[in-house]
């Protein structure tokens, strides 16, 4: 692990995540979308070859986006740019670090490259964000060096139901830890399959040692408000802004309106008057795909362990 204050120390890695709090991170597939996202008030963009809804519809092996594409997006905007690598694919992560992206998402949205191991993220200077469905998974990722957790939800659906499920799950498991006796934490760490030191830390603080954001199905201003009220510190919006349905992009003006609305809703998540105002301005949302209609084997959230 990097020394306490050196370049790539955990404080610098989580420090950037602190700056993204209360904001919206948007999936984009080209420079034009990145510019729209920045103009609408995104705090960062996720540079992708295809958004999750397209990946889900088209199938095939989903890999890291082409560096050329990512560079084009990095040159188009002044806000931080993130990019995804496959779970366990440390060579893709090395390429993304050499490219100079600001955050790497080791993501279940791409096809996993390793069935047992995630990337050892301590060895990198660039910070990582990882998905989690429950506290044990979140703490395992943090033990590997993740500087930000995002709940997985079910990406590419526009259905918020599992973003809610996973946020509730993690918040509830953290609350439960805070009332356990010291000696009970050892057994709980075993159940969670997470390092005891991290379990004890959460029990004391009542929260994760890194920021906890929400992702996977957030499509409307009301969805953003919902996950923020449940405890998310920021939101990732994937397909919900730029997609009309799973294969067609929304018109740029409509995407920009949606993006602005979700940005305002995330800041004013506790103010129903503002939420009403921004919701009224919208003409539509992504058609979406109900999570309940997806076969278990097709679920992206099952990837990662």
């Amino acid at each position, binding site marked *: 692990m990097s020394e306490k204050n050196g*370049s790539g120390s955990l*404080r610098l890695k989580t420090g*950037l995540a602190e*700056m993204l709090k209360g904001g919206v991170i948007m999936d984009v597939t080209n420079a034009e979308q990145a510019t729209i996202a920045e103009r609408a*008030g995104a705090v960062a963009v996720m540079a992708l070859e295809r958004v999750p809804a397209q990946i889900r519809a088209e199938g095939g092996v989903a890999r890291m986006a082409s560096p050329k594409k990512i560079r084009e997006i990095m040159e188009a905007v002044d806000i*931080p740019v993130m990019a995804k690598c496959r779970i366990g694919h440390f060579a893709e992560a090395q390429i993304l670090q050499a490219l100079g992206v*600001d955050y790497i998402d080791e993501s279940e949205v791409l096809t996993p490259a390793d069935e047992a191991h995630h990337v050892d993220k301590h060895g990198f200077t660039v910070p990582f964000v990882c998905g989690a469905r429950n506290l044990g998974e979140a703490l395992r990722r943090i033990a590997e060096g993740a500087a930000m957790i995002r709940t997985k939800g079910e990406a590419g659906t526009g259905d918020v139901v599992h973003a809610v499920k996973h946020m509730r799950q993690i918040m509830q498991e953290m609350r439960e830890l805070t009332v356990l006796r010291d000696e009970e934490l050892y057994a709980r760490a075993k159940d969670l399959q997470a390092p005891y030191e991290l379990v004890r830390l959460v029990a004391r603080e009542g929260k994760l040692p890194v920021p906890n954001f929400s992702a996977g199905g957030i499509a409307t201003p009301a969805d953003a408000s919902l996950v923020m009220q449940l405890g998310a510190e920021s939101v990732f919006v994937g397909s919900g802004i730029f997609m009309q349905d799973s294969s067609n992009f929304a018109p740029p003006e409509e995407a920009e309106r949606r993006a602005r609305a979700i940005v305002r809703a995330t*800041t004013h998540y506790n103010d129903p008057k503002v939420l009403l105002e921004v919701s009224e301005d919208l003409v539509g949302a992504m058609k979406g795909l109900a999570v309940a209609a997806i076969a278990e084997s097709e679920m992206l959230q099952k990837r990662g362990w």
Partner: protein
Amino acid sequence: MKVGVLALQGDFDAHRKRLEELGAEVVLVRRPEQLDEVDALVIPGGESGTFLKLLGEQGLEKLKQFVRAKPTFGTCAGAILLANQVENPHQPGLGALDITIRRNAYGRQLDSSIRQAETTLGGDPLEMVFIRAPKIERVGRAVEVLAREGNDPVLVRQGNVMAATFHPELSEDKRVHAAFLELVRKR
């Protein structure tokens, strides 16, 4: 004494904690009219462009009037907002500090760093956390430089307005916030 923290986006909660540790009563400011309730304001780190979008023209105007009348302290994105000239790219601001500031002047996240430098606040060198930090490229005559890192001014003051290009809210050292609260009390 009520101190507002602009809570549109960014690390406002880290500022809230620090100010409360120092005994201030903190109000998280999300609507322009909340500025009428507070005696001073902290503008946190975050994305300065996002702040501007969320403020809108009306919010920016209200904030301009506030910073002319009451003590304000900005860190990183907050310093960018307070400057009267912003480069890379050029963007509007509050024009409360006679400085020229360049966004992302050190580079990307890989160039973020934690450093130490002397200050005029007294005591040991101060730890400074720089995250995708801006650089102050010019300071006007009325601006007092409270700290430099290398040749660059990183902590400055002009009248009731203070700005840091680093994040004192992410260090344990409380001296910078204490100096700001001292400024508020003296008024």
